[in-house]
């Protein structure tokens, strides 16, 4: 036979499914089992909350995809190194199947394994939510997005494994997972305005609502963004062996895939980056948001100085004589009732205060703040719902806006000196029963100053609400607060009513308060 008699070259790209299946059977080993196991354990632990929802539990499972990714990264690297480590490179290279096709089958197997592993993790999250009595809707978009993110981790590991030794691959997996974890939890947690977090394969969970899903919902562009990365990485991996023969259909296809992937990742990456500032919310039109009174940053994602308007979605309510609390229906009435029982003592203590919040509604974003004297307070969804601890002093801080401002000023903010409000706050805390005059006096006598009066108020939450460090109560404020507590409540209430406009405006002097001269 001569060259001219050569049979028409059989296409070596078509039959990749057999090898994919063979590879796949051998990928379901320890790394994959460990990856799903560890991430599922963490997810179940994280999702073990008092008021479970399907959305949150599956969302946590999705988020733990970053743990799974480390194992998938290693799995990819292991598969890439297998021929080298088992000295089968020559056997594979002397077969008529082109190296690019062999790589494509392996990428296919890794993609299927990664997607299946993520699917299993997500399913565990769903089963966990149902087993805990969770309700709500399923955020289906997390499934394909997580599958793509998992496949990407495996492919990146494969790419590294092709060029690096095992030790570097292990380091790469640690850096990949640790890096995304760091950006996710440590960096973007406090810098979400930059939008960088959306570029992660698994974006952070805090900006998620059981009622609205992700806020903003980035998953349209995020899916395409991750898909772009997959095309880019996969295209380069497959095209690399063709570098000396880039005229074949296969090499061109791979290169076109890589270029398309680069374009998609760039375009949609830029779009994602802009999401944080654009702040597309599934709820009310941002144009309708109510200006807040302060200049402080209101937390993770609220575009200050706006607060989330009433979108009438928090419709499951519980009431007391002093307060009405409404939460998203998915959490159930028990949460609303629980919140009322936590907030009611404080609500009754400030019953006579002008402008006090009587309506607390759940919102998907923003820290707790009070709604600018609208008689409302907003309550951000907290999936762990440890409100028993966090909400002490919340309504009091709502009633005294500048005092509330102090908590957000923080160490880097400007100190606001409103001694009259501080003294009134102390009086209200004593009235609510959280703190006794005796405990305050003991604190003063023992030399404890500021917010660390006695044992109870020294909790971080109290410090958070009533000031930081030196911004806590001064001795003068404490003296006046205690004097007010010693007076008949009706008298203080009556006198404060006239002083209130000046008090909340921050223009009232400490000396003007009832009890100052006693």
């Amino acid at each position, binding site marked *: 036979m*001569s*060259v001219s008699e050569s049979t028409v070259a059989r296409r*070596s790209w078509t039959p990749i499914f*057999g090898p994919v299946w*063979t590879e796949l059977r051998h990928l379901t080993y320890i790394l994959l089992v460990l990856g799903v196991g560890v991430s599922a354990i963490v997810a179940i632990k994280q999702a073990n909350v008092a008021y479970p929802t399907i959305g949150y539990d599956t969302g946590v499972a999705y988020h733990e995809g970053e743990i799974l990714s480390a194992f998938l990264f290693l799995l990819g690297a292991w598969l890439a190194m297998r021929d080298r480590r088992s000295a089968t*490179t020559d056997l594979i*290279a002397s077969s*008529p199947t*082109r190296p690019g096709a062999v790589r494509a089958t392996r990428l296919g197997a890794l993609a299927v394994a990664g997607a299946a592993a993520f699917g299993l993790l997500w399913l565990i999250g769903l089963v966990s939510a149902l087993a805990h009595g969770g309700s709500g809707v399923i955020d289906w978009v997390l499934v394909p997005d997580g599958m793509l993110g998992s496949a990407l981790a495996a492919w990146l590991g494969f790419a590294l494994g092709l060029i690096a030794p095992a030790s570097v691959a292990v380091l790469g997996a640690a850096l990949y997972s640790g890096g995304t974890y760091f950006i996710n939890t440590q960096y973007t947690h406090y810098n979400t305005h930059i939008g960088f977090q959306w570029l992660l394969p698994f974006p952070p969970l805090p900006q998620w609502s059981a009622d609205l899903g992700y806020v903003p919902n980035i998953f349209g562009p995020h899916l395409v963004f991750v898909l772009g990365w997959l095309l880019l990485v996969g295209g380069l991996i497959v095209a690399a062996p063709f570098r000396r023969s880039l005229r074949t259909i296969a090499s061109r296809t791979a290169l076109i895939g890589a270029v398309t992937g680069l374009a998609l990742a760039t375009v949609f990456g830029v779009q994602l980056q802009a999401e944080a500032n654009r702040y597309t919310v599934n709820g009310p039109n941002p144009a309708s948001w109510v200006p807040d009174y302060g200049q402080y940053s209101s937390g993770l994602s609220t575009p200050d100085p706006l607060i989330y308007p009433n979108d009438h979605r928090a419709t499951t309510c519980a009431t007391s004589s002093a307060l009405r609390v409404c939460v998203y229906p998915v959490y159930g009435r028990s949460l609303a009732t629980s919140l009322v029982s936590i907030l009611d003592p404080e609500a009754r203590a400030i019953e006579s205060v002008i402008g006090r919040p009587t309506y607390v509604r759940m919102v998907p974003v923003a820290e707790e703040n009070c709604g600018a004297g609208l008689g409302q307070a907003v309550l951000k969804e907290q999936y762990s719902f440890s409100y028993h601890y966090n909400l002490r002093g919340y309504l009091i801080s709502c009633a005294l806006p500048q005092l509330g401002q102090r908590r957000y000023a923080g160490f880097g903010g400007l100190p606001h000196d409103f001694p009259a409000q501080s003294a009134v706050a102390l009086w209200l805390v004593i009235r609510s029963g959280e703190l006794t005059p005796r405990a305050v006096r003991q604190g003063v006598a023992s030399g404890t100053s500021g917010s660390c009066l006695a044992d109870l108020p020294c909790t971080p939450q109290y410090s958070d609400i009533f000031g930081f460090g030196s911004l806590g109560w001064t001795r003068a404020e404490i003296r006046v607060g205690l004097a007010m507590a010693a007076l008949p409540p009706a008298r203080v209430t009556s006198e404060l009513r006239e002083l209130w406009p000046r008090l909340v405006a921050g223009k009232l002097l400490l000396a003007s308060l009832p009890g100052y001269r006693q």
Partner: protein
Amino acid sequence: MNVVFENLSRSYGSVRALDGIDITIGPGITGLLGPNGAGKTTMLRILATLLPPTSGTARLDGWSTSHDRERVEIRRRLGYLPQDLGLYPRFTVFEFVDYLAMLKELHDPRQRHRRVREALEAVDLQDVAGRKIRTLSGGIRRRVGIAQAIVADPQLLLLDEPTGGLDPEQRVRFRQLVGRLGEHRTVLLSTHLVEDVSAICTSVVVLWHGRVLFQGAPAELRKRAEGLVWSAQEASSDAVASWRTDNGKLRVIGARPGPSATPVEPTLEDGYLLVTSGSPIR
């Protein structure tokens, strides 16, 4: 199927592993004989399309190893057992051979599985088909390597030091197997064991420092030593080689060591030693 080397050279830096090889190898079993470093493995790797020549060409029925498309055609007709055979330890024997069969473009599962079973039977591995490769001994692994090499019924079979690590019984069985395989194929068998060549090869190529010292039938190589192999009490200083045999006398290759020396029938090994000695006797 003919294998043609035309002025083939291959260098590794300043080391010339192959130096102007110009030979044609036809059907049958050809033994590549030579000491370590003679260039046998380099020659096979070039033919297996794993290594480009520095200059010259290697062709298989007209297809050159230097052209991308033609390389694929050569690979389609190739079975290769490398010297440093590696296998996937977690695969079973069947899975591994089946996987390689897929890469060798045997796509129909039923036909492929039949071929895999036949290949395993040919090397007498049908009983361990379901065992993980990591549990197998070195000899059995070698047979797995042969099975993968023959699974696609190649027209050209390249076997690089195939009997290394085999015990005598396995070696005999291997020779029988290769003998059968060589009936309808071109087989290139690289070895430094003369007895392998002597047992099964229809032709032999002797390589020495990258050059071909001899090409022909084993009988011709043996014939080179005719009249130059002696049984003697003492060796002469200009003997090509000499060693004491089990009858207490020396076997001497070279000029007659003395009047008492008696001529003996030469073996292939004698011919090989004579050829590779560079002796001007022949």
